[in-house]
């Protein structure tokens, strides 16, 4: 219950128009802070939803694969340059962002992550390492403006942000594979 409240407070805070406007004014914060925080808020709120509807999750997401796929689809959708632009210019798109990231990405992630196998987890990491590296390269190398609402320098910053995230995930996966985890179990 406490977790749900934390998640809800975070969610409501992110919904405040001045907070949203501030976070969205900088490209990298829009992409790598507001969006992950929205997912986190859903992740925290998920506990109560899981407790309320245990049958639903047990029935439709028993091995975690549908949930993790939904999570990935929502994440990839918000990585399309156009969607980030439209979240700023089209209200319906902004609304969809605030619904999809917590409830269609955060909630299924919470429910699925424990259920999928470690091979599944590694595949998710590898897919996102590749995607983030590609997006990073795209944003850094592009001569033209990809998002009309942001300057090119913001675009390059975002590119490096993607690369940094990819590197962090890669380090995590490498230590998972080569590290000795027996002590932590």
């Amino acid at each position, binding site marked *: 219950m406490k977790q749900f409240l934390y998640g809800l407070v975070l969610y409501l805070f992110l919904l405040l128009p001045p907070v949203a406007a501030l976070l969205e004014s900088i490209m990298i914060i829009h992409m790598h802070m507001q969006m992950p925080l929205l997912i986190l808020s859903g992740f925290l709120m998920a506990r109560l939803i899981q407790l309320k509807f245990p049958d639903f999750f047990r029935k439709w997401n028993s091995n975690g694969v549908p949930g993790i796929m*939904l999570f990935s689809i929502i994440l990839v959708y918000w990585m399309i340059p156009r969607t980030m632009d439209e979240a700023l210019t089209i209200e319906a798109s902004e609304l969809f962002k605030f619904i999809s990231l917590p409830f269609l990405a955060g909630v299924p992630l919470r429910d699925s992550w424990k259920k999928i196998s470690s091979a599944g987890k590694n595949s998710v990491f590898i897919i996102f390492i590749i995607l983030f590296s590609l997006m990073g390269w795209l944003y850094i190398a592009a001569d033209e403006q990809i998002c009309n609402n942001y300057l090119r320098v913001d675009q390059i910053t975002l590119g490096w942000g993607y690369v940094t995230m990819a590197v962090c995930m890669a380090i995590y996966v490498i230590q998972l594979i080569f590290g000795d985890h027996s002590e932590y179990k």
Partner: protein
Amino acid sequence: MKKHHNAIAIIVVLLFGTVLFYIGTDGFRAFTAESARTYKLLQDKPVFPSVTLEDSQNRSYTFKEFADGKYVFLTFMYTSCTTVCPQLEMNMAQVYALIPDSYIGKDIVFLSISFDPERDDPKTLAKYRTYFGSDGETWRMARITNKEELKELLDRLGVVVIPDGNGNFTHNSAFYLIGKQGHLLEMMDFTNIDEAASTVAAILNEEAGE
């Protein structure tokens, strides 16, 4: 039974994803707001609004007077630009060279519009045009001094210009072709010179053949 449910859930999720991406990208056509804008503009075919131009020779006239029932090949730029604009104008010069001489001035005219009227006075434009071989007649460079008119034009043709605070602008670039009735006919990739030239030439040839 559980496996069964999982499979159904996966199919539902995949279907949802496909529909989401289909709608979000205009049927997998437009992955950036810019390409979406181009797609929408070409569907809408907006009319070139009424604006007054002031060219490099200090002459003032409306766009309509300048076009005078001809096709107009159009770009947007500002002379202090050090990145895209020189490339844009250089490529425009190549398109100009590729269009058969017989059409130039008679069926089609070229125009570079500056969206930085404060700095791009006629004197600056006169100097700038010589860098690209614009003759100042069949290819003119002009500014729009009326701010409202300029804004209306940029909005109408979907040109997004963001000042970066250091006297430069981040902006999208394309070749525009305005039809004889003043409607937007084509928006072309300015980096693809040959394709733009052949598109324009094909339109002119078709017209001449009639």
